[in-house]
């Protein structure tokens, strides 16, 4: 069973919160839910909508056809009614115009309740829950948890009593599922990793991490700082890390552009840093509240000069959690930059899971005891100079200039060569580490191979259920690149199809560079919207013909 629900209205009407309530309640009742959020860059007005997919089996994406449309205004019906499934209907005020409208006299009920027009959502959602046969006690409990408002509770109850159950859902599975966005998971991963200071400047779609961490800083004893710009953000984060704090920054493409010089400083100074890059549609301002996978090569190559880095792209919110923990571990152990390469889609969509397992990696600051003759850039076999922090006897030096082992400025050929080699030597050891962290994942069985990365995982997995003879290779670590794994999967497949949410197939370029394999067939989407599984099924079948 799968049900597709759209909730739409103007910005400011509480669309996101209504959709969240629906998703949370179904996840609570034992169903799997995916919740996609679509909104333009404005605060009031416009057209906002959420799409939910509800199922008794795991689901990871949204579709663009609906069983129910909860319409807060006429605009929602005009824009989406044509995508209503057969037998589908619209829930809304009785004065709206729709072919299959289940309308209610909302203003009358609102007047009776003595509340604001916003209660319309709550009445409709109450009716919606009854239609799907959810128990009223459970409905009201969740409403209470989310809104803490008696009038809203009453409005939901009013709506609930307006209708009779219409849809019979299959038996639910395990109740109380997790219902979590990528941004929430990244913030949680950072807290679990022992974050001390988070630096960020507001930017969609990375801002939720700033907000979540800011709201948790006192409870979990860390600090959130919003400096004057992204340049200050990353330089301050490097300063804090040098001084001994576990620091992290978060941004999107435009802010990441500003951070580039300091990314290069990270490279030569070998100051540990975790960076969350949540992609949105570029170039420049682009389409700021929409999705893209356009920054893959930018993340891999950001910063002038040559230096190693870790880049990992989580495919859903659960992966966001564990990849963040891995990023902290690798950054601080190897004095390297770890980029968590997410995007709007994985960051702001809610995914549902039965459980989260305890992470294997335990937080550590990786601060060594200083030797008698402490050298900040000691040449070692694995390229990692023991990390110490200023404040004790050792003189801890960090430099943007090429340096000798003490960190003193040098222009000597010998040291320049040695330091380059030392920095790159780490990658061999990091690669051994990531080989144990599922750098790639293969789903399904078949002779043909779909290849993707990041947030397209969800729609590819949902499509895979309906595609015969296909495996899906998800590449999670983009640097160091798991060349051998990828090569092997490619060599063991007949048809190869690359799927990416960008205009040119950036992963295809990276695969070609790393493995020498060219993938000719590409399904690319660059209209700033994520793939639906239907998009993928249609296009894969077309390629096969």
């Amino acid at each position: 069973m799968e049900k597709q629900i759209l909730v739409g209205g103007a910005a400011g009407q509480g669309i996101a919160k209504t959709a969240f309530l629906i998703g949370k309640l179904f996840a609570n009742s034992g169903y799997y839910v995916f919740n996609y959020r679509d909104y333009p860059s404005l605060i009031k007005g416009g057209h906002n909508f959420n799409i939910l997919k509800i199922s008794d089996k795991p689901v990871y994406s949204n579709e663009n056809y609906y069983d129910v449309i909860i319409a807060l205004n006429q605009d929602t019906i005009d824009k989406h009614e044509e995508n209503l499934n057969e037998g589908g209907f619209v829930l809304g005020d009785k004065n709206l115009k729709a072919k299959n409208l289940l309308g209610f006299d909302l203003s009358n009920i609102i007047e009776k309740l003595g509340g604001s027009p916003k209660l319309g959502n709550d009445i409709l959602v109450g009716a919606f829950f009854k239609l799907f046969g959810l128990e009223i006690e459970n409905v009201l409990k969740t409403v209470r948890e989310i809104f803490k408002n008696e009038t809203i509770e009453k409005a939901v109850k009013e709506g609930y009593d307006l209708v009779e159950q219409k849809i019979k859902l299959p038996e639910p599975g395990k109740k109380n599922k997790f219902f979590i966005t990528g941004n929430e998971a990244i913030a949680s991963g950072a807290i679990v990793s022992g974050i001390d200071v988070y630096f960020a400047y507001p930017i969609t779609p990375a801002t939720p991490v700033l907000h979540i961490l800011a709201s948790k800083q006192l409870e979990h004893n860390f600090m959130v700082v919003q400096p004057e710009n992204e340049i200050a953000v990353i330089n301050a984060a490097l300063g804090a890390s040098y001084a001994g704090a576990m620091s992290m920054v978060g941004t999107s493409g435009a802010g990441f552009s500003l951070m580039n010089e300091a990314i290069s400083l990270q490279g030569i100074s070998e100051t540990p840093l975790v960076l969350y890059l949540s992609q949105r549609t570029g170039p420049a301002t682009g389409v700021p509240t929409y999705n893209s996978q356009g920054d893959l090569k930018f993340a891999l190559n950001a910063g002038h000069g040559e230096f190693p880095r870790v880049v990992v792209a989580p495919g859903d919110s659960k992966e966001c959690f564990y990849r963040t923990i891995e990023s902290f571990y690798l950054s601080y152990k190897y004095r390297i930059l770890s980029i968590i390469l997410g995007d709007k889609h994985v960051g702001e969509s809610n995914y549902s899971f039965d459980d989260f397992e305890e992470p294997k990696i335990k937080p550590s600051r990786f601060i060594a005891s200083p030797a008698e003759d402490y050298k900040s850039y000691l040449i070692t076999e694995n390229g990692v100079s023991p990390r110490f922090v200023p404040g004790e006897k050792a003189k801890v030096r960090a430099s943007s200039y090429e340096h000798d082992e003490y960190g003193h400025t040098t222009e000597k050929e010998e040291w320049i060569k040695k330091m380059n080699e030392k920095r790159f030597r780490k990658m061999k050891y990091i690669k051994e580490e990531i080989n144990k962290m599922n750098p790639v994942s293969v789903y399904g069985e078949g002779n043909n191979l779909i290849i993707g990365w990041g947030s397209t995982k969800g729609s590819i997995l949902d499509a895979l259920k309906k595609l015969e003879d296909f495996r899906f290779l998800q590449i999670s670590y983009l640097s160091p690149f798991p060349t051998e794994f990828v090569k092997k999967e490619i060599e063991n497949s007949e048809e190869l199809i690359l799927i990416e949410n960008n205009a040119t197939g950036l992963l295809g370029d990276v695969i070609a560079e790393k493995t020498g394999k060219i993938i000719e067939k590409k399904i690319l989407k660059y209209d700033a919207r994520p793939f639906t599984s239907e998009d993928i099924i249609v296009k894969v079948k077309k390629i096969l013909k």
Partner: protein
Amino acid sequence: MKVEDLDTGEKITWCPGCANFGILMSVKQAITNLVNNNKLDLNKVVGVSGVGCHDKIYDYLNLNFFHTLHGRTLPTLFGIKIGNPELTVIGFGGDGATYAEGIAHLVHSCRYNIDSTFIVFDNQVFSLTTGQATPVSEKGLVSPSTPLGTGEKPVNPIALTLNCGASFVARGFALDIPHLTKIIEAAIEHRGFSFIDIIEPCISYHNTTKFLREHVYKLEEANHNPANYEEAMKKAQEWDYCYGENAKIPIGIFYKIEKRTYTEQWPQIRTWHKFERKTDFRKIIERYRS
């Protein structure tokens, strides 16, 4: 300790006769005096530099030190202090780095009042890139990048930082080492953001030695009251960083007041690396259970 204890043994590559030697000596003397008077723990001192001639001080001071990017001394310094508030952080910048590339950071550092010292080597030109004009070059300066002369009035860093809320504002003169040493000592001792604009000639590209020597005078000899903001602002505007015949260049402490510092305002800031965390994975993730 002795002043020489701060030496690194690295070869100094400033031009022979460069005024920066005066600043280096004053910094070393000030730190030594404070340490010897038990006012400073040398292990806890951290230097921060940007990029330009001034940055070479990184190699000449045997301190904990972070040599950052051009114009980015201040955000790095800010982060270091947040990363460990026990540290005494002394930042260095040039006038190009500070008043051109990194001026936004200067404005905000004054607002944050982060407890630290920031020393600007102000010779009014980009020296390491062979003498181009900076935002504090005198109007009309002919330089390789401005052969027709600069058209703008210089920024006045003293007035700017006063206006932005700095709690300690001073101007030093690199060729008056005893006087400068005292200013630096006071700046390091001051609880809050201490800003010192050190005027100096660049003997290679902007040799103002004679003029500066003739036109500087000491604020403390003119009965200046550094607790009075209006008076400080008036003194700040006495010199416009240009070279008029009647210029009077006040040096010394323009302004000094006590106010809450950034790290005092946010008590959750701590010496993080000494803080033992107990993270409860279950508790953190469970809040997202439906």
